């Protein structure tokens, strides 16, 4: 057995065990509460979430089965200075990723300059050749990005993953804050917590900014795969908050390269589509012909510049796990800046030397599928059994190009309300970065927490929960 590190950086107590200054007012307040108070509040939260119906559908269960995402009532607090660093780092990273996307779908100078091997981009399953040479409004591809951040080691931030396709979770960020303010109004009086509820306004503004040229008062809609999608609650929530129509593929029709929605007053033109459907399902005439979710002819309207899709088609090539190790180079190449946020060292198992190292050290590493998501198809070395490692060894040898490996990060912990009272659990953070004419974000993001003791998997589909995230104003 390799020794797994036992000391984790804790958001409240750092490495020393002392309550950190930014948690001081909270701790003082919470310690004065009667002991049963928190348990009562947690029950109250469960009842409220059930009644309001904030649920997510779970795949693989009975069609339409709904579950509550467990909500933890202890906030994750981020000091103002840390957030300033994060904010700059996130803006820098997303800016570079957008420049990269614009480049590879147009001039491809980064490939010509030999910074990244051309085959890595052009042969990537997420590269969409139909996008080659096409101009998108403002040159923005990833209008909405969800960047997964963890703290490790002595508290330094790492980017774990850039989600540039259809990142979800922002509705939980907003609902968690609403819930906390309802449950613990007193706690907010003692802390200057930066507000986040203007996110839908920023999002709508961003979407309007990227409307096709010449459209002065654009009609924006949100395109959902439908009510059985796991994120359907979020789709309805955001559409409602922005005051835009929530449409399904069947509601849209394309005529003369223009997209219309079917309304009770006849067809109405649509200018911007915030789509929450994957590329492959958008248009059966161009992508998967069996897709019933999409809109026949949508791509032709998009190509003609008559409608904007957010995010653009083909952004997956930039958030793919095989592209991830190159992001620091992208930042230097496009912006001429040093990356502000760290990348996690990554072994690409298609490379012989990397593969050799990884197979020798499976027990210490995390192995991920290049195209995987949701915490599925992942091996967490230190927590794995011999049989699981043997299985992954075979999988890697059969398809090395499908896997990457990373060191097992000592994810930071945050006090969480567990059976035994407040106990540390591992967390991550997903801030949402909006890119229109400028790059903007609300302070904070969605904090996910692995509720099982010792677990490092925070995904809601795998027993993860969420917390409210407080960025302090000072």
């Amino acid at each position, binding site marked *: 057995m390799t020794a797994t590190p036992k000391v984790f950086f804790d958001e409240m107590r750092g490495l020393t065990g002392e309550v950190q200054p930014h948690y001081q007012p909270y701790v003082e307040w919470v310690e004065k509460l009667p002991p049963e108070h928190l348990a009562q509040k947690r029950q109250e939260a469960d009842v409220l979430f059930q*009644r309001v119906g904030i649920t997510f559908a779970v795949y693989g269960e009975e069609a339409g089965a709904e579950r509550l995402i467990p909500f933890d009532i202890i906030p994750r607090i981020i000091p103002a200075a840390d957030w300033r660093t994060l904010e700059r780092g996130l803006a820098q990273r997303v800016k570079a990723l957008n420049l990269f996307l614009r480049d590879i779908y147009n001039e491809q100078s980064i490939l010509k300059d030999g910074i990244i091997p051309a085959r890595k981009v052009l042969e990537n399953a997420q590269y969409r050749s139909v996008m080659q040479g096409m101009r998108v409004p403002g040159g923005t591809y990833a209008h909405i990005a969800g960047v997964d951040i963890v703290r490790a080691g002595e508290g330094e931030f790492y980017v774990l993953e850039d989600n540039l396709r259809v990142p979800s979770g922002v509705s939980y960020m907003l609902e968690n804050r609403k819930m906390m303010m309802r449950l613990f109004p007193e706690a907010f009086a003692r802390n200057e917590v930066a507000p986040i509820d203007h996110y839908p306004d920023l999002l709508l503004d961003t979407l309007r900014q990227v409307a096709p040229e010449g459209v002065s008062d654009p009609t924006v809609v949100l395109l959902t795969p*439908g009510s059985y999608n796991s994120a359907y609650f979020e789709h*309805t929530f955001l559409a409602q908050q922005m005051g835009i129509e929530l*449409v399904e593929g069947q509601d849209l*029709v394309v005529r003369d390269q223009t997209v219309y929605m*079917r309304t*009770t007053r006849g067809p109405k033109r649509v200018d911007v589509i915030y789509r929450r459907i994957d590329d492959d399902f958008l248009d059966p005439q161009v992508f998967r012909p069996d897709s019933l979710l999409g809109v026949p002819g949508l791509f032709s309207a998009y190509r003609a510049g008559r409608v904007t899709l957010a995010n653009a088609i083909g952004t997956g090539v930039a958030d793919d796990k095989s592209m991830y190790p190159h992001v620091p180079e992208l930042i230097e190449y496009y912006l001429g800046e040093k990356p502000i946020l760290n990348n996690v060292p990554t072994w690409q198992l298609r490379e012989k030397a990397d593969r050799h190292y990884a197979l020798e050290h499976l027990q210490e590493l995390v192995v991920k599928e290049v195209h995987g998501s949701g915490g599925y198809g992942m091996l967490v070395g230190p927590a794995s059994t011999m049989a699981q490692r043997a299985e992954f060894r075979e999988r890697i040898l059969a398809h090395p190009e499908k896997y990457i490996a990373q060191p097992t990060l000592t994810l930071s912990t945050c006090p969480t309300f567990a059976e035994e009272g407040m106990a540390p659990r591992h967390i991550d953070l997903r801030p949402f970065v909006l890119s229109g004419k400028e790059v903007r974000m609300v302070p904070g993001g969605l904090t996910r927490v692995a509720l099982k003791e010792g677990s490092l998997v925070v995904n809601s589909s795998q027993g993860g929960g969420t917390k409210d995230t407080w960025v302090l104003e000072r």
Partner: protein
Amino acid sequence: MLSRTANDLYWMSRHMERAENTARMLDVTYRMSLLPYRVMAPGEKWAEPWALPLITTGHATSYYQRYTELSPENVLHFMVLDASNSSSIYSSLQTARETARAQRGAVTIEMWESLNETWLQMRAKSFADITARSISEFFDWVKDRSHLFRGITFGTMIRDEGYHFIRIGTFLERADNTARILDVKYHTLLPSVHDVGGAVDYYQWSALLRSLSAFSSYRQIYRDVITPLRVAELLILRDDVPRSLHACMNAIYEILQVLCDRERLEPERLAGEIHAQLHYGKTERIFKIGLHEYLMQFLDQTGALNVEINKHFLVPTYQ
């Protein structure tokens, strides 16, 4: 407004109203089944009361695909709890809740919470729970939840197109149901001609009136014995009785006058035509045609109206 949204809202309210009406239909059946039917000469034909809800809602065939015997337990199970019967109270409440979930952006939080709560409670009920005390208690619960939802809708929702389609759904479903419940009497042959105007006849009519919450209205208006002519007048022609066909068509016609424009005129025209027949109708004429025939003709017309509303608003077919 998106056609699909309008369509969902329309069906959301239809299903909630349907749950209430199924409860009313079963309630009248239950009340009639308590009457002394079985005192009759052998060989005479009469409809078993528990067959009535199946016949009038057109579900007899699907019932007999599932059950061999006609019994109160089976009918109640089929019409209340059977998830495979799309018109059972269970299914209606589920569909109402599912459509509201799909259209959360278009309904108020209070409306959604009410339908969600109703569904969560319904889901927790077993057949034993429902029949433990009086079945009427359960029917009252369904009616209460429906009244509550309608009141919440009335009290919280913006008066936009969505609201109008919700109201059309309610009134079309209600008109349909009032016509069907009135038709129940047609299928209920009395043991013998001597019984017409007798005790059984009286109790049947009063059970019917009660199931439509119209018994005391009848008393207040006529202050006299219950006669078929008056019941028909009350539930078909009077526009001050909230569940009468006339009252329902008043509401529908009024809303369609708001919704329809020059390009979409047919629904308004058809509603106006049906409305005029009720507005200027006479009971004598209804009985000349025959009550059953008259009601069937009415159901055909409202069916046609539903088709027109679909074509022009809810499921437009343009390409």
